[in-house]
């Protein structure tokens, strides 16, 4: 099993490396080059553009730019070919590279280090994402059990119909609608933000968190309840469940000891997918609920053509996603004694 964990970790490292390649290519794909915003200034001259390209090191070959961005340029030879102009003039302003958490400086936030911008917003995104995950398990788990135990009867039907209905509209739209009605018209929940400015108490935080977390958990609880219902129905038909019933165990014991334990495994696998979904969806929910997290930063950066921030957000969110999937896989292998660690078929 240690071997399995090591192999999965190495795989994840490769994935992170691939994500830095994708992230870096954003910089190269930028229409008109990453410094295109200079065109907005009518007084700029060709010399200005060339000077800035030298300062930012965009005149270097793509491979060198990647190495400097990913691994830093302070260890590279001191020539025009290897280093950006900034780094040649002042060794203190050399890029330290993504591996040392230096994502450069933002274009639009007056040269603030990108990592600082992101570090300020990660707690907000995490608060929302983890609360949603908790809520989606908290709601999805009982719903799945109720649906499976009452298959074909009204609780199951009600759950299935509402699941379909919730699935047919974008979840952020439901959020927007609830925000208008509950927040705007009835004044029951705040209209946005993490807490009342000047009164950032914990009650205020909880109050602000309630609607965003519940709404962004919708997809998760639907997913969890579906997985659990399906798995429980499978397990309920197993011989060992019939045996357990036949030897006179109570319904509760059968359910907890035999059914749920076995139905839990796919539930654990579902965790990583739903974690990713919530992380991905944070962009939309943070826009709807004016939540000051990474998602809103992403939209601002995109609208301002702030490429360093975009690249950093992509790499960091990919890293979080990859880490989440890795952790769930490891958890799975610890929990499920049946997982085989060699290459599995099917």
């Amino acid at each position: 099993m240690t071997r399995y964990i090591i192999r999965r970790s190495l795989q994840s490292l490769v994935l992170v490396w691939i994500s830095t390649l994708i992230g870096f290519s954003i910089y190269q794909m930028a229409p008109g080059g990453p410094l295109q915003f200079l065109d907005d200034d009518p007084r700029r001259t060709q010399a200005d553009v060339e000077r800035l390209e030298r300062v930012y090191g965009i005149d270097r070959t793509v491979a060198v730019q990647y190495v400097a961005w990913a691994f830093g340029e302070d260890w590279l030879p001191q020539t025009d070919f290897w280093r950006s102009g900034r780094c040649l003039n002042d060794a203190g302003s050399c890029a330290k590279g993504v591996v040392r958490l230096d994502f450069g400086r933002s274009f639009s936030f007056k040269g603030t280090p990108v990592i600082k911008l992101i570090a300020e917003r990660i707690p907000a995104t995490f608060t929302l994402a983890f609360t949603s995950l908790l809520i989606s398990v908290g709601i999805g788990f009982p719903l799945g059990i109720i649906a499976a135990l009452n298959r074909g009867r009204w609780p199951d039907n009600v759950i299935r119909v509402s699941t379909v209905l919730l699935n047919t509209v974008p979840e952020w739209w439901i959020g927007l609608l609830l925000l208008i009605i509950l927040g705007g018209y009835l004044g029951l929940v705040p209209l946005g933000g993490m807490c009342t400015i000047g009164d950032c108490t914990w009650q205020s935080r909880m109050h602000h968190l309630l609607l965003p977390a519940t709404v962004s958990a919708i997809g998760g609880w639907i997913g969890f309840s579906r997985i659990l219902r399906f798995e429980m129905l499978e397990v309920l038909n197993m011989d060992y469940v019939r045996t357990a019933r036949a030897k006179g165990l109570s319904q509760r014991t059968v359910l907890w000891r035999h059914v749920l334990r076995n139905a839990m495994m796919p539930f654990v696998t579902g965790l990583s997918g739903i974690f990713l979904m919530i992380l991905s969806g944070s962009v939309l929910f943070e826009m709807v609920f004016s939540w000051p997290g990474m998602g809103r930063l992403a939209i601002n950066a995109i609208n301002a053509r702030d490429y360093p921030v975009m690249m950093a957000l992509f790499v960091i969110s990919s890293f979080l996603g990859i880490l989440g999937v890795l952790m769930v896989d490891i958890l799975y292998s610890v929990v499920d004694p049946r997982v085989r660690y060699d290459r599995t078929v099917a």
Partner: protein
Amino acid sequence: MSSRADAGDLQTKQQTYAGAVFTKIYRDKITVFALLLLAFVIGISVGAPWIGDNVLGFSPTKTNLRMRSKPPTWANEAWPIFQEFTRTCNSDAGCDWSKWGAIFSASRTGLRGCFGSGLGDCHWMGTDDAGRDVLTRAVYGGRISLRIGLWVATISMTLGVAMGLVSGYYATTWIDDIINAIIMTLGSIPLLFLLIILSRIFQPGPEGLALLIGIFGWMGLSRLVRGQIFSIREREYIIASQAIGAPPLRILARHVLPNVSSIIIVSAIFGVAGAIIAEAGLSYLGVGIGPPLPSWGNMMQGSLGNFQNAPWLVITPGLFIFMTTLAIYLIGDGLRDALDPWIRQ
């Protein structure tokens, strides 16, 4: 007599597969309803120019700066009372529910006036921030959203089937490993981030956006197809055709593909719904389809920051999305049962 009835029974059972599918759908009331609903949505989207000219009387792109963010015409009187009501809710006194009587009676009068009005006199769903008729734009929006949905389904279905067939057939070889690695990579990065960045950089039109969404949406189908192939590739008929020397491509096309076709069809149908929702999200964030072209997503983008004062901008496109995706989901559900030869009616 009885033997004749038996013969009759036997004859009805000698149905073709397509015939059986059709009968099953025909008997499934919910699916029939969903098909009608989808036909209605497709109908109004295709006929949008005619509806715009002859039923609603508005152009989807012509702005009217004197009519910016106006409530529905029939609610002209009711809307201020409603706003009054919301103000009482936000005050310390609590909601003044007695205002609802006035709201209802004012809307009733307004609705009567709207039904009697001439062409282009009534904004049924209000106007947006540039004075364009919201209902007309929503009707036109279906043209974009459905087009994107169909393209995405086509692209992701083609990719998913191709990848799934190949990786299933060549399972546990290096080809399968490569495809699995791609799926794993795409499966562990938050794709919405990438989609937003890419659609901002390329600023694609409807087809380009569909291509972007489709390229990142084939993994689920590919996995499904691969799993199915796994279970059928050791069957006797596959081994038999391998034994008589059939090339892999022929085996894939003639023996494997027909066995997984129902999964493909159903997942393509769900794909259309997923794509419509994805497009709405991207356009809402302002990186999908840009105005003045109306799509259900970018209509809602106009509501950013103004949603309290103009909720019709949010409600109308959302209801159209709801109607369309509900129809698609129900059809997909019905087809899944109908296409399964093991389920008898």
